[in-house]
């Protein structure tokens, strides 16, 4: 089915046969294989089974066909549980696809990387504003690995060997903290109330809103953590922070979060974006790259002009490529381009747009919940004020409710029925955001009504 004329170069490899012949001659070898003479002969050129090469049109056709076997984006879905569909300003993806941003490496040469560096500084500023913290890095892999790094930071600072995670926390976050803790030889305690924090804990980790969607009053929790000499780590949804109190103003020492949903499509979970911000005392213990503001050593016009402002990667004595085994983290490449999209989206929304979007999300979710609660046989158990996710109990078991909705072309909320919290018993957790189409909510209400009628 494929491919190009024999001897014609691949579009990604410019050298022609003639180029190659000329280059080989200059290098002083007869063929390409001679360049690999150091490799052990008996292991060279093994049999490798790969599917045949495709031309570009064939490739697009194959993957369009493949993509179409996913559920269509138009299918109503009420999944949240860590990933949320958002209305993202169109300029975010437009500007982020400029290839000067897309195809740059980590900004090791600041003179020709001010685009990446200055926008990294913008990102740090936005994250500090949203979280109420003093210092942010340019981003880590995702919220869970960022939270694990926060725990490691707390351990370095307090010299304690255990961390406490307050339930309900995202199970994925808890699991990643455990993965990182295993390497460091730390104990991870899952606790139901903050009273369980002891002087053995380096930090108390609290999710905001929590895994079941409830808005948490962080301040009393931070006080408990601090009373016991532990740091307070808040794992906050940056979109919800458009209306919720900044965790830094409620006593958090470190704030992490997931930036993916404000940066672009869910993309089956990744690329994600770990937000990481901390108080000033922890600046030199931060993981990851940090951009700092400085100025030219000498001004323009041969040094005659006033030195101009510029940005560089800084505080690098923390990092792996300098400190090696004594680095604060091994992180190198992270999620810079997603951070750029996040920055532009948040800045495009601006101070009012972010608040309006968060409140719109809140209103639409509550409206949907109210409609569901009014259906015969359905109940929306509340654990306190909540943001965009709510628990739904129907007249049939939760897993069966999900199946019945699926049969009607609707992806139900996340099944939380096996959790310990009493309100989660037999419940699905539905998510409605500012980006959920009205028609999807209507379809859901109709479907639940008919399922209720049948029960």
């Amino acid at each position, binding site marked *: 089915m494929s491919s190009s004329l024999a001897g014609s170069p691949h579009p990604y490899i*410019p050298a022609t046969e003639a180029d190659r012949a000329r280059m080989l001659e200059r290098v002083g070898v007869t063929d390409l294989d001679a360049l690999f003479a150091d490799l052990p002969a008996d292991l060279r050129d093994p049999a490798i089974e790969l599917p045949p090469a495709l031309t570009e049109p064939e490739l697009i056709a194959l993957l369009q066909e493949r993509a179409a076997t*996913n*559920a269509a984006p138009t299918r109503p879905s009420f999944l949240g549980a860590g990933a949320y569909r958002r209305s993202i*300003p169109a300029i975010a993806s437009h500007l982020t696809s400029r290839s000067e941003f*897309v195809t740059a490496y980590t900004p090791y040469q600041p003179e020709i990387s001010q685009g990446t560096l200055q926008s990294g500084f913008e990102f740090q500023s936005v994250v500090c504003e949203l979280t109420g913290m003093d210092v942010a890095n340019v981003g880590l892999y995702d919220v869970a690995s960022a939270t694990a790094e926060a725990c490691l930071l707390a351990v370095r600072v307090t010299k304690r060997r255990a961390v406490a995670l307050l339930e309900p926390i995202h199970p994925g976050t808890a699991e990643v903290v455990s993965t990182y803790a295993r390497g460091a030889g730390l104990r991870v305690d899952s606790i139901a109330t903050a009273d369980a924090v002891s002087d053995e804990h380096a930090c108390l980790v609290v999710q905001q809103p929590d895994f079941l969607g409830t808005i948490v009053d962080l301040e009393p929790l931070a006080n408990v953590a601090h009373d016991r000499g532990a740091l307070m780590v808040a794992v906050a949804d940056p979109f919800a922070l458009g209306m919720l109190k900044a965790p830094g103003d409620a006593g958090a020492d470190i704030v992490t979060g997931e930036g993916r949903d404000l940066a672009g499509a869910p993309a089956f979970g990744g690329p994600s974006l770990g937000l990481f911000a901390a108080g000033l005392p922890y600046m030199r213990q931060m993981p990851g790259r940090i951009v700092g503001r400085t100025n030219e050593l000498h001004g323009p016009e041969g040094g005659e002009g006033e030195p101009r402002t510029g940005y560089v990667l800084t505080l690098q004595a923390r990092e792996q490529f300098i400190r090696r085994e004594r680095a604060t983290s091994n992180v190198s*490449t992270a999620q810079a381009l997603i951070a750029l999209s996040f920055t532009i989206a948040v*800045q495009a929304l601006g101070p009012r747009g972010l608040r309006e979007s968060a409140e719109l999300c809140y209103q639409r979710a509550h409206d949907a919940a109210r409609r569901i609660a009014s259906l015969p046989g359905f109940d929306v158990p509340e654990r306190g004020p909540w943001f965009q996710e709510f628990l739904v109990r129907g007249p049939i078991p939760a897993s069966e409710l999900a199946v019945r909705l699926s049969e009607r072309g609707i992806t139900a909320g996340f099944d939380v029925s096996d959790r310990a919290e009493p309100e989660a018993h037999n419940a699905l957790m539905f998510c409605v955001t500012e980006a959920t189409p009205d028609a999807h909510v209507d379809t859901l209400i109709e479907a639940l009504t008919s399922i209720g009628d049948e029960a």
Partner: protein
Amino acid sequence: MTAPGLRSEDFGARLSFDRGETGRRAVDVPVWSGDATPLPDAHLLRDSVRLPEMSQGELVRYYTALSARNYGIDSGTYPLGSCTMKYNPKVNDLIASLPDFADAHPQSPVEEAQGTLRTLMELRQGLAEITGLPEVSLAPAAGAQGELAGVLMITRALEDRGELEQRRRILVPDSAHGTNPATAAMAGFTVTHLPTAEDGSLDRATIERELDETVAGVMVTVPNTLGLWENGIEEVAGLIHDAGAYLYADGANLNAIMGRIRYGDLGFDVAHLNLHKNFSTPHGGGGPGAGPVCCTEELAPYLPTPVLAEDDDGLVQLIAPERSIGRLQQFHGNVGVLLRAYAYMRALGLDGLRAVSGQAVLNANYLRVLLHGHYDLPYDRPVLHEVVFSGSRQRREHDVRTYDMAKRLIDHGFHPPTVYFPLIVEEALMIEPTETEPPEAIEALAEALIAIAEEAASDPDTLHGAPWTAPIRRLDETKAARRPVLRWDEVDPKLD
């Protein structure tokens, strides 16, 4: 064409926060017209948030101007050694952004994401073939996270063998990337550094001396960071296994050997790959990348969660291996990057991947020959994908450092190579052209570097002040670190 204000104005002094005007906005938000629910208690809410107030056009111009102050592989040659900055095919971006892929929710039932999962399954099979390591997890978000996965897998395997308490050391060559020792430390091991021998390979006598019952593993980059084949690595693998330790491959330099030799066949137990290097996914100024980890059957039970497996109904499932080290992220990895890598693999096929490694190696050798005699070459022999020169002659004779010469290359229109790495080469200048540069570009790069070597003798001051044509001149990095200004504030910090 230079965007207005790029060089004349002090562009960096004014952030988005300092631009625009109170009351402007870049997007509007629908107004809720239904029944209003009271907001939560005021003590749970914030008063305001400080963000820029700009119109849409202003914001677009600001970030467009910023993009013009950046240099990417699409701007020109980017021979950054060890980073494999090859051209990033645009069709890969198109595929990753197909709405059916991009909108897939990570909590979807697997039945609703088979298009994504089937594609990832085929990528996983391809990577297993290419590395000769049959089991793969695509979960790690980048190379360093893949390394952490690999080393934690070794931890778990030793735990199951009852030897974790005694095996507390990981051996790392002195030419290794900094992530290797940093990862070993994160996984709780102490690091022993192995010296490089005169031929540029690991010093065999030291390895034999160090290998004992306290060693958990050895992390080796193949080819190594000098761009050289690690001579006798397959025999070293035997020694390591005889000593009860595991051999880890840092796959950063896979571009040199794709389709030609495999980590598994050489005796490696576990390897990570950097798909944002050899599989052409764009680097984005610092990610997202992807760092799949590949391993032997023996280590498969320890792979990070999730791994992919096809069930009896032909559905691709996400599963947790039996003794998994656990999750590395909340979800399934940088899927958008993995889709791009799949498209790249399919566009090339085996012959294409072999053409990639062949041309990458030829290009590095061509550059080596063109520059021979103009710069010192501490390991003067044919190389694989990259070549490491030294600027020590220029430093000694003209007081010009590699740093200066790299900066001068910017004035010639090139991104500088990697400098001062590997640490074992004085004044290192580490150049990796990759296969996507045409011969003319390599010749032009060589001419520029030769002109700079001549300039080091004739006009060293021009080099000391370089670059002269970039949007900004050399920055005061010492001040940035000593008096850190890390965020915008209303009161503009005095930068004197």
